[in-house]
């Protein structure tokens, strides 16, 4: 029994790392622009379908699809940014509606192009089991876990050590002050979209490599990213990591002890629990009400 739990914890950490990439992208955009990109999950899924196409049409490994996915998703993100920045009034609300519309377009576009069938990678190499001590995992899970760790570390380095990253943090914490320091918030917003796109591309390739995809998954992914942000509490980046892993663990525990069909529900229950019991999330700062 303990082995099952430990195994579930291990799997949860692995999948959680990819969820973290999605949630971090969402948080980055929200931090700099105060906009929630409701199409975020769809963009991650787009990357997954790019990986699928590379594999099915060209016989290439999904890993090779990543550069292509990055380009495509970043272009899509840039377009989204362009449209969102055009909103004149009431941006908080209207950006929700706009990105919702974009999400619907993407979901149906993917439905048109790739049909409703469930897809996953056919690469045996990626699906091979790897044993590390007592823990089993798919090679793809392990691989993308390492990739995520590198990306997250890279993101941290970028945010704290580079001027571009510092500019992002400046705009996120105080837009007006940042402007006074000569930082162009529009550039920063675009950059945050692009970085989010980069992370999303990797996350999409990951999900295709160790999971299954279908056009409806986009909404699920957006919701998962949102649940993680609620778990984390407002404005907490380490919280996002913890939240992502927590979600991953919840899902894998549910799959192990109940059924895989219920794993999404388990994530939702976790979300409800946090909402009712810990409204500030695990790490959030208290709000005044």
């Amino acid at each position, binding site marked *: 029994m303990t082995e099952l739990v430990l195994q579930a914890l291990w799997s949860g950490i692995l999948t959680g790392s990819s969820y973290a990439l999605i949630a971090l992208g969402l948080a980055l955009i929200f931090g700099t622009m105060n906009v929630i990109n409701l199409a975020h999950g769809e963009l991650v899924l787009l990357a997954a379908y790019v990986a699928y196409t590379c594999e099915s049409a060209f016989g290439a490994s999904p890993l090779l699809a990543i550069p292509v996915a990055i380009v495509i998703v970043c272009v899509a993100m840039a377009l989204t940014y362009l449209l969102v920045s055009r909103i004149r009034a009431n941006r908080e609300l209207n950006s929700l*509606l706009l990105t919702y519309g974009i999400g619907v377009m993407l979901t149906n576009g993917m439905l048109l192009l790739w049909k409703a069938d469930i897809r996953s990678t056919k690469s045996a190499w990626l699906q091979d089991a790897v044993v590390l001590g007592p823990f089993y995992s798919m090679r793809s899970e392990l691989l993308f876990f390492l990739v995520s760790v590198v990306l997250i570390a890279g993101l941290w380095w970028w945010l704290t050590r580079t001027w571009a990253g510092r500019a992002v943090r400046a705009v996120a914490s105080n837009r007006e002050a940042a402007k006074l320091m000569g930082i162009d918030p529009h550039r920063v917003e675009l950059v945050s979209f692009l970085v989010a796109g980069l992370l999303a591309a990797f996350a999409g390739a990951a999900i295709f490599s160790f999971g299954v995809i279908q056009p409806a998954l986009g909404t699920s992914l957006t919701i998962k990213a949102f649940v993680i942000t609620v778990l984390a509490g407002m404005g907490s980046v380490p919280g996002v990591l913890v939240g992502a892993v927590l979600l991953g663990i919840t899902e894998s525990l549910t799959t192990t002890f109940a059924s895989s069909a219920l794993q999404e529900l388990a994530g939702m229950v976790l979300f409800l629990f946090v909402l009712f019991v810990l409204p500030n999330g695990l790490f959030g700062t208290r709000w005044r*009400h």
Partner: protein
Amino acid sequence: MQRRALIGIALAIVLYALVPLAFAGNLYLMSMIVAALTIGGVALAWALLGNLGGLVSFGHAAFFGVGSYASALLVMKAGWPIGGSLIAGGVCAALAAVLVLPALRLRGPYFALAVLAYAHIFRIIATEWKGLTNGAGGIGNIPRFPVVFGYDFASKTGGYWIVLSLVLAFAAIYAWVRDSHAGLALRAMQHSEDATRAVGVNSQFLKALMLFLSAFMTGVMGAFNAHYINFLEPDYAFSGLWTMLPIVAAIFGGYRTITGPLIGAVVVYLLDQLVFKALMPIGHQIVLGALLGAMILFAPEGLLSLFRRRRLQQGGVPAAASRNA
């Protein structure tokens, strides 16, 4: 006052008598109109929550589905009469909204997402709780509307009259709330919540009330739909379309007014079914998404209001002084 009454009577005659007379032969068109009005009812409820409650929801499908299943199950498993079950469906949806209450604490965009998550949750529950809902297999042979005073309300025209009456009743309720003191307070709350609290307005309570009202109306629409279509399954009852179409309809027709969402629903739905679907049988929702995006960018107050504003400007009356239609 007299003119208003005359217009009201004329409108009632047109809607209740002339429309069925004109289209009763064309069953296809009648069922489109019924579906459009169903969407219209949800659009109205959605707009009410947005305008009065100041809350944007992306998960009204949750309330629609809960209402559908609640009504169907109450009739089929507990022997309830259909009329009462419609109301009960609405009540169950409002109860489901109780679960959404903690999300009210979240800032605007987060609330919108939270409701989206709820729609997801309910769909999964409906799919997995096979004992109650028969899971993905769905429920078939849901009882139709009964014969009353010799008239078969299960017919297309009967269904039309029922949904029309429901929608008009909801519009009347919306107007009544909007014009009440609570309605004034609700409108003020959106910009000046502290100021309203300082004069004794229980803003949390009023917002919650709007959430319940919106959920109730949507649930009743769902319940109506269940007995009209006579079939339910989770992916249909909780389909994202029941969220999407009302939103597009409300934005199209102008979500700040009461008639806007209704007119928008008829136009958008008929457009979608008769034009978009014909061009693009799968994925025709892309056009809807594009339409929504275009409206947000170029006409966020709705296309109808663009038209209205132009007329007002020509008349010389400042737009701000015009009361909501």
